[in-house]
């Protein structure tokens, strides 16, 4: 602290402030804070994974007719379709990671 710190002129005034009682070590408070951090982290993680699931579900729904057609025709189409599905999943995963990085949060828990 610099030297312009406020000097306390009245002892009695200082005594009033000294009476204020917040413990130097308070495990209950720390637990409460870390609980709220865990809750916030869970909510963010849940939202991101839900987003990932949603994107994947939409992609699968849209490609369902093509899948059915491919299964009914030949194996070459199935291979092409499998590649498309893998690409779709990868894009969804990368998008989720990009959003997470944009949050600038400390590293999230891995389930």
């Amino acid at each position, binding site marked *: *602290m*610099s*030297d*312009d*710190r*406020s000097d*306390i*002129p*009245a*002892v*009695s*005034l*200082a*005594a*009033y*402030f000294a*009476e*204020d*009682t*917040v*413990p*130097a*070590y*308070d495990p209950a*408070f*720390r637990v*409460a*804070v*870390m609980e*709220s*951090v865990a809750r*916030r982290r869970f909510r963010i993680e849940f939202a991101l994974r839900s987003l990932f699931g949603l994107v994947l579900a939409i992609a699968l729904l849209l490609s369902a007719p093509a899948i059915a057609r491919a299964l009914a025709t030949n194996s070459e189409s199935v291979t092409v379709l499998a590649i498309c599905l893998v690409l779709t999943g990868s894009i969804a995963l990368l998008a989720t990671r990009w959003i997470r990085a944009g949050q*600038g*949060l*400390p*590293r*999230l828990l891995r389930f």
Partner: protein
Amino acid sequence: MAGEKSDAALVAAARSGSDAAFSRLVDRHQQALRQFLRRICPSPAEAEDLAQEAFLAAWQKLASLRQPEHFKTWLHSLAWNKARTLARSAARRRVRDTQWQADRPEISAVAADMNLALQQAMAKLPEGQRAVVALCLGGGWSHGDAAKILEMPLGTVKSHASRGRARLAELLGASDE
């Protein structure tokens, strides 16, 4: 304590995902922050909630902290901004609380309970003055650091400290030499 990690080291560890490091930061700074908030908030319960919210905001914004060694100043600044936002959004409730405070017995009648007397006296100070008094008189912060936390000019902080101290001494019946 020997071997104790600096705030900057703990912030770096917390940024890379260490909950233990962040909880150490909580342990280290909770007392100063809660005392500050108790002195500027209308009720201790509100101060406790705000303190938790400030730590939560700090965790979420760790990546934006430019000078990790100034974690404590930054944390107080976050808390102060939250307290001001809350105060603005709860203006109507504050009027009611102020009325309730005014209806309570005079400070001299409860002088035996110094905490209560201090809380009542602090509630009578204007917002900025209260914050400066809480930091400089209560928390031992320098005027310069208080100016950074509260985003006020240094002259204003010095003026608030001087006037707030005099007003507080008057309200508490304490000497202000």
